[in-house]
């Protein structure tokens, strides 16, 4: 027979817990809004967090390209073609043998191959080129608005050379070109996605909310668009751009072309979410409260979608960047004097460059890879954190 036992205490009022960290009050969670909860969840994903920092870094580099670049991207010095990267040093040895702090790069010694008469450069540790922070250098027009000549890092004496990432076949500083390219490549993704976003959200929302014929029609259009092979189509459209157009104009047309095919995935995602949310009880409740369709969409459904849209957009950005790079690499995208990562890659398109000056390929390609990876990790993290309310 079972013994009848019980705990001779009053019932407890809540679950037994031990806080992991003392201090942080758990009660503030009640007043935390959607974005705070998303941030709690997102910040636990360290990889996504690091990626976010990397993206921010690239954006800042693009934003302050003129100041950060040591030189003007088009300034070429024919006597230093295909020069290898110079090493940044911190201490110089004085003639008396003592060490002194001085930012510097080592100069070049030129050697001429007697057989082919080709000039090659090797870093010469004997030559010291002093460099400094916040130096005056080549004048530029900041954001096209005002004149300035301050650079973050550069040789202290004008005429000295500092090629931290080497030079290209015309003797232009690769580092400066890469920094200017960051501006174009990062912005083409963001501008392109903005166009896609408007198209995708509007068409997706209309399609998902009303359903029926409108939905069928939109979906068929999306299917037709996504069934087209993209590269030949881009090629065709880009080839149709008149040669007489200014590089800036070409830039806008290229973003438009890239984004015209990027919105379909976004529209589908938004439509799917709308379908799911339309059946939710709280949306029915809003309708029964007497809310108009507009109010239901903008006050109840769209706020539930924003974090999801943000995640999808982040995942769409790298495809834009890759598309621009591909077009420019094929020689039908952006053209000089505009510098983008794709343009830089196109210049490194031959075997001689890869054999003799691999830095011209490594750095732009590395930038593309790092950015695309960072966007993907960030997007994955956002997607996982986008719905903080699911259990």
């Amino acid at each position, binding site marked *: 027979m079972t*013994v009848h036992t019980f705990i001779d205490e009053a019932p407890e009022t809540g679950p037994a817990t031990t806080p992991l960290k003392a201090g942080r009050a758990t009660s503030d969670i009640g007043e935390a809004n959607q974005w705070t909860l998303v941030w709690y969840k997102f910040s636990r994903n360290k990889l996504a967090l690091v990626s976010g920092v990397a993206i921010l870094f690239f954006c800042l580099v693009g934003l302050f390209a003129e100041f950060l670049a040591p030189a003007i991207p088009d300034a070429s010095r024919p006597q230093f073609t295909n020069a290898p990267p110079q090493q940044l040093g911190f201490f110089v040895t004085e003639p008396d043998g003592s060490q002194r702090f001085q930012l510097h790069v080592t100069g070049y010694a030129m050697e001429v191959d007697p057989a082919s008469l080709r000039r090659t450069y090797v870093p010469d540790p004997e030559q010291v080129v002093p460099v400094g922070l916040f130096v005056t250098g080549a004048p530029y027009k900041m954001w096209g608005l005002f004149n300035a000549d301050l650079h973050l890092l550069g040789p202290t004496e004008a005429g000295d050379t500092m090629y931290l990432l080497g030079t290209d076949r015309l003797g232009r500083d690769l580092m400066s070109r890469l920094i200017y390219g960051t501006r174009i490549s990062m912005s083409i993704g963001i501008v392109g996605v903005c166009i896609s976003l408007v198209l995708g959200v509007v068409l997706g929302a209309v399609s998902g909310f009303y359903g029926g014929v409108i939905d069928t029609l939109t979906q068929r259009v999306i299917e037709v668009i996504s069934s087209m092979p993209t590269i030949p189509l881009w090629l065709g459209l880009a080839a149709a751009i008149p040669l007489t157009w200014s590089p800036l104009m070409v830039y806008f047309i290229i973003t438009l072309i890239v984004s015209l095919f990027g919105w379909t995935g976004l529209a589908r995602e938004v439509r799917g979410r709308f379908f799911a949310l339309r059946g939710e009880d709280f949306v029915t409740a809003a309708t029964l409260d007497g809310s108009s369709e507009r109010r239901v969409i903008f006050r109840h459904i769209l706020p539930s979608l924003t974090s999801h849209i943000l995640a999808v957009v982040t995942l769409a950005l790298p495809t834009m960047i890759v598309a621009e790079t591909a077009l420019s690499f094929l020689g039908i995208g952006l053209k000089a004097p505009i510098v983008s990562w794709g343009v830089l890659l196109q210049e490194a398109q031959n075997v001689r460059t890869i054999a003799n000056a691999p830095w011209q390929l490594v750095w732009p390609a590395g930038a593309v890879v790092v950015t695309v990876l960072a966007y993907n990790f960030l997007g994955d993290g956002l997607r996982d954190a986008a719905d903080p309310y699911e259990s």
Partner: protein
Amino acid sequence: MPTRPASAPDLAPPPAPAAADDDVVLSVEHLSLDFRLRTEVLHAARDVSFKLRRGKTLCLVGESGSGKSVTARALMHIIDRNGSITNGRILLTGEGEPIDIARLRERGRELLAVRGGRIGLIFQEPMSSLSPVHTIGSQIIEALQLHRDLNKKAARERAIELLGQVEIPNPEQMVDRYTYEFSGGMRQRAMIAMALAADPEILIADEPTTALDVTTQAEILDLIKRLQASRGMAMLLITHDMGVVAEVADEVVVMHFGRIVEHGSVDDIFYAPRHAYTRRLLDSTVKLEQSRRAAPPADAPAPRVILAARHLTKVYGTTRSWFGRETAAIKAVDDVSFDLHAGENLGIVGESGSGKTTLGRMLLRTVEPTSGSVTFFGDGEPVDVLGLSRRKMRDFHRQVRLIFQDPFASLNPRMTVRDIVGDPLIVAGKASGRELDRRVAELLELVGLDPAMRERYPHAFSGGQRQRIGIARALALDPKIIIADEATAALDVSIRAQILDLLLDIQKRLDLSFIFISHDISVVRYFCDRVAVMHRGRLVELGPAEQICTAPREPYTRSLISAVPNPDPRNKRMLHRTRFTA
């Protein structure tokens, strides 16, 4: 990584069992389970000890969050990744050497042999616990071949035999059917067959009938009980329903926030509860066995009709053939007529698929009726609801409100409580600014919530509190009628009674009528004056609540009422229930 205190004894043979304890097949000793959450460690089970005996049923009772399910799953070493066993032993005695399950390695050979081989598990959701892409037979055969050395042919024969044992008709044919061809009750039977495939010594049933209708529940419990008796298995049944406990348990363990607060024989628990929580749990269960509504005095004036439904019908899946002929697929609601009186509570009961929810939605026109009429007698002229324009519908929706079943899905998680409760007022243009704030505070007070909490978001509230928020939203526009669609189904028993009392209390203060849709007969009996019973889309019986619950006229109603478990172990109702065949 589970940490064990040094004091825990090593795996030594258990203390010489007393002669009376020969029947013990599994003993849980001082089991503690911890779960690591974002900011804290949750002690989901604390110092839990009990024994399972051959041929006996132990019921683990508790409300949501009491740790009953995690404890039961820990017996098979099924623990979520953020959880760990911090203390205690789970000794599987019975045949051969005793095994401490708490120490078995995850994915170890020994653990796999125990899972399904010596302990069988039945889940709550028969809809999601069976694979949709395999036949029922192949799933049972897989379980058989994992634990028994059988060839394909012998396993198939055994599977057919098992399906026969769980009383599935035509087992030879059903063995090759897919999951979707089985109803909920049949799936649960198939699930039981699978759990029994390897002749386990112990059967763990985790809320096996919660997702099922009362009549199906009675059949399944009946079946489990008989199978257990014939096989001499020990059973651990997890449930929140005291009625089910009274019907099937031998021994009862009451859990509350991770602790066992009371443990005893079923008779002791029901007739001599010692712990305050057990008493509270029983009180709220027993309370729902009576009616809170006073019978109207005999000389009362004829009640005024406030809503009249006539011949309401909803047909789904009508397909027009190429020659213009219409073929009806499913009649969800079939020619239903009733009146709702002012100040009255009308209950609509029925099992799943009886059309009760569709009926409620048709009254609000969130589902358009195929035919019939709804007339609303408000303050002015009678209103033909089905003929209203969209603009006029808004007016109607302000007077007839809906309370939802799911307190989690029905509140927008991205809005504060103030915005949620105030939304209907803003939309109706009735209040703004300070006035809105005052009105929201008033409404929250009316439903028993602290108005200071109105800046918080829904995730800060428990299920019962959220349902109160939903009620406040429904009351915001001074409605005449409230349709409550399974408004208490997702809540724990003790909170269920609180919410019903709240609604009755509000009704006294405001001039309200309720249409209460529920599958739970005790809730309807407690709350309603009159009850309409629905079955397969038709209204079977309509009458005073007391009469329907004590002296039903129709055979279907009789079978439905008699299948409701009675929370009294000395008077088991389910075993001699009347069955309805149609």
